């Protein structure tokens, strides 16, 4: 598979994702500039963490107006794989590709810690390598990671099994402990935790590897 890592001004986990693909799962990957207007030739788009445009207005709000974004929307609507991590998740909600919003942590402070997540839905292109209800350890690092949606949206999320990851402990005050959600079609995932920081035991955990591996598996399955 060939992945694009979309780089916005202020993205700072772009290389982490790049290495995750190149060294973690040995697939093709390229950085794509926010001014680009085409994603032709890519099978998956990854939107990295960081502080796009300084996150100066709201996290992810300004990035939504970058040229590449139209193409990301088209890509997602074609049913292709889109993954947004941390700031990438914030951008996807700002874009409306994912429901809800990410607001300031309940305690108001930035939090960097390795947390336990429950894999709620293993029937997605991003989680098929995990066991049902498996607990995984993945780092978080965010100040605005509290997932919010209204009750109606929440019931829809539950009904459509869009909730993919939940925190074991509610570190930031998220609605229903939500750490990651997909769109209805399940080809777009946004999550606050950083699986790309959990690829090797030596950095503390390799539980994130299966997420990337799942994407590959899914592709194989689709192709067959």
């Amino acid at each position, binding site marked *: 598979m060939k992945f694009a890592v979309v780089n916005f*001004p*202020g993205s*700072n*986990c772009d*290389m*982490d994702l790049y*290495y*995750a693909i190149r060294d973690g799962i040995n697939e093709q990957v390229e950085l794509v500039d926010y001014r680009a207007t085409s994603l032709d030739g890519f099978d998956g788009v990854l939107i990295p*963490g*960081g*502080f796009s*445009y*300084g*996150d*100066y207005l709201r996290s992810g709000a300004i990035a939504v107006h970058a040229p590449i974004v139209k193409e990301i929307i088209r890509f997602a609507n074609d049913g292709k794989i889109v993954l947004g991590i941390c700031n990438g998740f914030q951008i996807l909600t700002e874009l409306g590709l994912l429901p809800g919003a990410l607001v300031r942590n309940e305690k108001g*402070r*930035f*939090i*960097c*810690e390795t947390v336990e997540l429950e894999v709620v839905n293993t029937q997605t292109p991003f989680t098929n390598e995990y066991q049902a209800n498996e607990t995984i350890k993945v*780092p978080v*690092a965010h*100040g605005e990671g509290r997932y919010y949606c209204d009750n109606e949206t929440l019931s829809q999320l539950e009904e459509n099994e869009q909730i993919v990851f939940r925190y074991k402990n509610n570190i930031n005050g998220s609605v229903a402990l939500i750490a990651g959600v997909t769109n209805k079609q399940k080809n777009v995932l946004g999550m606050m935790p*950083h699986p*790309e*920081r959990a*690829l090797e035991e*030596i*950095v*503390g955990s390799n539980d994130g590897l299966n997420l990337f591996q799942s994407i590959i598996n899914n592709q194989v399955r689709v192709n067959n």
Partner: protein
Amino acid sequence: MTEPTAKQIREEKLYQQWGLTDSEYELISQKILKRLPNYTETGLYSVMWSEHCSYKNSKKVLRKMPNKSNRVIAGPGEDAGILDIGDNQAVVFKAESHNHPSAVEPYQGAATGVGGIIRDIFSMGAQPIALLNSLKFGPLKDGKTKHLVNEVVAGIGGYGNCIGLPTVGGEISFEDCYEHNPLVNAMCVGLLNNVEFKHGTASGTDNLIVYVGAKTGRDGIHGATFASDEFTDTKNKQRSAVQVGNPFIEKLLMDACVEIIEKHSDWILGIQDMGAAGLVSSTAEMASKAGSGLILNLDNVPQREIQMTAYEMMLSESQERMVLCVKPQFVNDVLEFFKRFELDAVVIGRVTDDQQYKIYQHENLVTDIPVDSLTELVPEYDRLEKKPARIEEQKDYQFIPQIDSLKNTWLTMLSRPNIASKKYFYQTYDSQVRANTLVRPGSDAGVVRIRGTKKAIAMTNDSNSKYVYLNPYVGGQIAVMEAARNIVASGGEPIGITDCLNYGNPENPEAFWELDQSVEGIASACEKLDTPVISGNVSLYNEYNDVSIYPSPMIGMVGLISDIEQVTTSYFKDAGDLIYLIGQTQDDFNGSEIQMEQLGQLKGDLRSLDLEKEKLHQDIVKYAIKQGLLKSCHDLSEGGLAIALSKAALDSGLGFEITTRLNSAQMFSETQSRFLVTVSPDKQEDFEKLIQGEFELLGQVSENPDFKVTTTNEIVVIDGQEAANDWMEAMACLMK
């Protein structure tokens, strides 16, 4: 707006308000210029001749520190020092203090401190890879200090998190003397792949000076006490001197500078950040190093505010700006290059061969002075020294703690602010971005691997000013050795240091003696370890109402881990592992945390440090780690053995059961040169054969989280959960 004339400046001695002395002013007007300096020129001299830029008070002392080793590629005098780590790679690091700006405006002061030190690293052509910080505050007893702490920590996190560099280590401590004069020191470490690149020079006639980054405003023009009511009617508008950081722009600037040096070093001759004293300091230093002259045209400088004077523009400390010296044939390439990063880049001047520093504004020549007179001709001072009376008076005093209940004292000590877990603070720093962090805050040193190699870099910030206060020489040695123990315990080989020397007024002979003595101590320890001092920073005049802070040298040490397999952490790993104490424990309670707890003040002298023994113990640990004998390793510092054991246990969720030859009081002794290590039972023989000499097998790590301790005079069981609560929650509780 009318500026005072040159004559007025002399007659009304206005230069004094800028910090120039009569004799300095005379030197400038009579020997150097042979005329009276005008307003702008006087301003340039006043900042360039300040202690901060010229080190005129401390130079003599600083020369005592070793700065050579076979790894040193660049030492003091550059934006940051460079050490060879093999494979054509080098580490670049420096620490910087931002004490006064943080006292005035804590969030922005701390944030711009971090931003400034990062620029020092990437202006050397290095990719910054990690941040550390050392913070000292007054006791957390009132809202004011809590606010200060909150804002400083938020500023440090805010900048580092946004720019995307992991903060992997640091320290926070609390003493009365910092109540009105907090210390905020930040360190940045970078990795250099282009070892050849010469940074920071502006040489070659007709090469161009290019300005890149944020626009210039009236930020941080402190010296401008001049700019009082006489010549401004919009006083308040003019006076906002606070620098505000913009980490978003700095991220662009960092990426651009690293890339231009890596890929296009042939386009440029030099690159330098605009730090303290902004434009003047960066350009004058570049020209002076190259032995060239310079012409600047201020009309081209990007400006954020209107009607700025030449003086204001030259001295502005607006953040996130760099200057480059560019070969004329590549100037368009350079300007285009930065445009790609959406950064403003403009030509503001060119290099000349007359060694004069000339500034034009609105077509007037507003400055015309010899370049060297700004950087080289600064007078150096030999300050008076006097040993403070307290030192002689307390020479023979020895504090011995009174332990009525080991358990109670143990728990009390765990929750002391200087000992309690600082996670409440450091968890607000992203410590993992870039996915290279192998050891996060919480162990002895932070460790970051170098991707694509087996190497890793260990780094730490250490300072225990209580020791330095009691005995500056030994205290200085201890600061270095404690840092080294942190590196060694993490599996690293110490290779060099940077420092922030935070002291009181150098014109006070006692404060100057403290500076001199402690630097000698630092120097002797560095020589022993072959760890040169390759960069650093001096912050003098830290006092309030004529009372100085404790002499507070902060040591930032970097170590090389040749194989990531050797990375070692401080916490226990498995139940059943054997716990050893390396080093002998004596009654060392002067300057200790338990002295502060029980006596409420510092008193007495320190035992002199046996550098041989210290080095030996470090070597033993290094060797044992290389042999794969240690499962955990922790250096003993504040609070002694009791605290080291507790931390190792609490971070692992395990407990321990020990019996020691020490008495209960000695559990809190702070004797130097000690390590706490654990060894798997099957390695016991190998380990004991190796260490021989001074060690004690204390007992074992236990599955049960309780601490079971037998001293020569007591048997106690401390509830692991209770200990965890006291240690983990103390900071959050105090900050409420």
